[in-house]
């Protein structure tokens, strides 16, 4: 019997939250009906977060040792580029070998679960990482603007002591259209009640029952359920249809405090469920989009040290309780729904020379500095002549990755003059515990601000967006450790 299963899982939700009632209030002059549908909060990725950065952070949050990963799949319906691989960017950010087999999965909200299923049933695949994240653009005033949120999740599938094993599955593909998003257009939905009653409930319940039959289980055997929620109330209606209790729904809090994460919702819900579940619990994972995937897992929590728990700062459950407020205007401007006049300073050219990028690609993406001897000074970026080199020869560096290290703030300012899509621009000098110093931008700063001596961790983010050419460049930024993380 194969021991293949999920060996690690992590989630990432941006800290920033927008009250759905604020969205409704903004549009109430034209769309008073939105108010009745505006409950809870939605998560908001900032201008410098996209599917790739959130997928990377989700995998980092899993705490998994990535050295054994042989395959990577990046799944999303909101890949930033059509022909620049999200998986390749993630590989570089995570400093995985370039020989790692990778692929991108897209065009379907089931892309995350389908990739997971493929990894589980492909017993030759070795350790496989599935990264899945969404930053979907909804039209101002649309229901999707209220219901959707941004976030990601990541899973490692392997053969070594899995925390959950697959008991059975069912998948169907059909051109069932609850909504669609054509190139260059906003999402266009079908009537909500029709979607829920005529598309989701029959499709999903049929798929779940098929999976239960394959696994030789009954609905009453399910302890935790992750159900799709592309329309208001769909999750609860499905639960009723399947005879499940609301308390068993792992995505309730996700939907209430972050929103529908698209293709990442099922995997994020699975992360929450695995954190909450007991040993031997049964988890149902179901996703909807041009068909349906249903997977049934059995939880193995006997390896308690490796099992996900809800009480770590990076746990999926913990992240749902974070909340940095943002105004509707800042949210709308940051994703191009509102065209603010930032003045001539915003006419700055942020073009990245591809030749320059190619020269620095590996060290920039992976935040890799170097030292010229075992006890030499670590520096970033590497320079032809090292800082502590006493002879004038081109230096040969030992790589030192800084992305996973903690640093301390040496200097800081809040710049109100320079253009940034979400002012103000906070930056300063940080010093890593290995002595390396780097000028860095600070992100995820609470009202308490940042002070000299504060400790910061590194986050993979968008460094700049070339608005004239649509290019985006990624690098790392420093985020203050939260109170929980400091402990």
């Amino acid at each position, binding site marked *: 019997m194969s021991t293949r299963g999920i060996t690690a899982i992590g989630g990432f939700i941006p800290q920033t939250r927008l009250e759905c009632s604020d969205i409704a209030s903004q549009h109430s002059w034209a769309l008073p009906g939105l108010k009745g549908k505006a409950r809870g909060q939605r998560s908001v990725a900032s201008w410098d977060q996209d599917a790739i950065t959130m997928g990377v952070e989700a995998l980092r949050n899993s705490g998994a040792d990535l050295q054994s990963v042989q395959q990577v799949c990046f799944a999303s319906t909101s890949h930033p580029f059509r022909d620049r691989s999200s998986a390749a960017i993630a590989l570089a950010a995570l400093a995985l070998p370039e020989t790692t087999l990778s692929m991108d999965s897209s065009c379907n909200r089931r892309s995350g679960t389908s990739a997971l299923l493929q990894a589980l049933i492909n017993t030759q695949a070795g350790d496989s990482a599935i990264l899945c994240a969404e930053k979907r653009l909804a039209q101002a005033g649309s229901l999707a603007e209220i219901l959707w949120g941004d976030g990601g999740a990541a899973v490692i599938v392997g053969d070594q002591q899995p925390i959950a094993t697959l008991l059975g599955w069912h998948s169907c593909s059909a051109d069932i259209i609850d909504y669609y998003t054509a190139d260059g257009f906003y999402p266009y939905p079908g009537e909500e009640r029709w979607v829920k009653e005529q598309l989701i409930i029959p499709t999903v319940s049929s798929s779940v029952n098929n999976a239960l039959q394959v696994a030789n289980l009954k609905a009453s055997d399910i302890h935790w359920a992750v159900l799709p929620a592309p329309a208001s109330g769909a999750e609860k209606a499905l639960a009723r249809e399947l005879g499940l209790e609301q308390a068993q729904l792992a995505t309730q809090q996700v939907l209430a405090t972050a929103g529908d994460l698209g293709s990442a919702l099922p995997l994020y819900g699975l992360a929450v469920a695995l954190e909450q579940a007991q040993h031997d619990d049964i988890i149902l994972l179901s996703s909807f989009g041009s068909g349906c995937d249903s997977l049934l897992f059995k939880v193995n929590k006997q390896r308690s040290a490796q099992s996900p728990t809800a009480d770590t700062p990076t746990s999926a459950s913990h992240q749902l309780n974070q909340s940095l407020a943002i105004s509707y205007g800042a949210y709308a401007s940051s994703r191009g729904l509102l065209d603010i006049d930032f*003045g*001539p*300073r915003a*006419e*700055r*050219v*942020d*073009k*990245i*020379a591809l030749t*320059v*990028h190619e*020269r*620095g690609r590996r060290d*920039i993406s992976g935040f890799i500095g170097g030292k010229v001897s075992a006890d030499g*000074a670590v*520096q*970033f*970026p590497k*320079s032809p002549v090292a*800082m*502590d080199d006493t002879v004038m020869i081109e230096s040969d560096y030992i790589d030192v990755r800084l992305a996973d290290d903690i640093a301390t703030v*040496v*200097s*800081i*300012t*809040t*710049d*109100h*003059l*320079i253009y940034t899509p979400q002012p103000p*621009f906070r*930056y*300063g*000098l940080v*010093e890593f515990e290995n*002595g*390396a*110093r*780097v*000028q*860095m*931008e600070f992100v995820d700063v609470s009202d308490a601000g940042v*002070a*000299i*001596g504060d400790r910061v961790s590194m986050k993979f983010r968008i*460094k*700049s967006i070339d608005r004239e050419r649509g290019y985006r*460049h990624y*690098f*790392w930024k420093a985020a203050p450790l939260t109170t929980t993380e400091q402990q």
Partner: protein
Amino acid sequence: MAQGIKDKVAIIGMGCSKFGERWDCSSEDLMVEAFSEALQDAGIEKQAVEAAWLGSALDDVNVGNSGLPLASGLRLPRIPVTRVENMCATGTEALRAATYAVASGAVDIALAMGVEKLKDTGYGGLPLRTKGLANDLWMPYGSAPGNFSQLASAYSSRYGIDADELKRAMAHVSWKSHQNGAGNPKAHLRKKVDMETILNAPMVADPLGLFDCCGVSDGAACAIVTTPEIAKSLGKHDLVTVKSIQICASNGWESTANGWDGSYVVNTREAAKKAYAEAGISNPASDIDLAEVHDCFSITELVIMEDLGFSSPGEAVKDILDGHYDADGRLPVQIDGGLKCFGHPVGASGLRMAYEVYTQLLGRAGDRQLVTPSIGLTQNLGGSPSNSVVAVGLFGLLN
């Protein structure tokens, strides 16, 4: 050991345009304005100039590359003209080149011109860079006030100085310069500003408010230099000579290694040490009669007071609030109004500072004339505190 250039080169003529929003002027107009004054001051014909250096820092903003803008702008007689650029130290760099050329004996008379035409960008502050560099891949793109404001938090942290007290000292720096600049006809900003207005101004880059920042303006300044012997042969009596001009550029230590706490500018200290040694200054706080320093931001001037040895470490706040650097203080700093009131046409600023020292040494400063100064200092700080180019110049009367 090198002999140095002390007293080997005399300044025989200087000129400085009116600084400000010179909407009606081109960079050539500004250079002609400064050069005409310098020529008249020197009492020579322009054909006597044998070599020239043009300092212009921002090549895309209405001056242009190479030495040609100066050569053709002044219709110089087919002499070697070279453009130099060293960030905010550019003007002093041009003067250093002209001075070294004379000191070496290569030419008898040389011209140093600094000019910048910044007000055609359409906004305040320095022009934005438009070129893709490797640094763009990782380095935060902050503003100049953002870069320099970080001195304040580091300084507070190092000396345990309350942020409000530091802010008051910073405000005094700006208040003092506005007091001085109000009477200077060549200054851009000629309005006295009270402390409350300075303290309550809108924030630009925490903790720098609007009045903690110098303006950006158009301007040109120049110097004609020769040997003291030739100067005397031209009938000059009170000679202002160059005692030293030193430049120090970062090697990357501040922002790469872990020895710098961010509260000072190491290159100012290094350039000053070398300049004092060359000029024979043993006690800068008492030997120097006036200083024109790089007050791009109030916190910069505050830190410079310590880096130049005018204040003891951690004492600049007290010294500033005690008025030591006011017009009637023990060492007047920015008696002309400084960058604060002149604005900062980058390539011109170093020569504008030298112009004020020269004017004061010759007793020509009118209402702001100090009592018998004999030696003055200029200092420029280009880049940012963590990655800087610093120039320190010392000029004095020839004994």
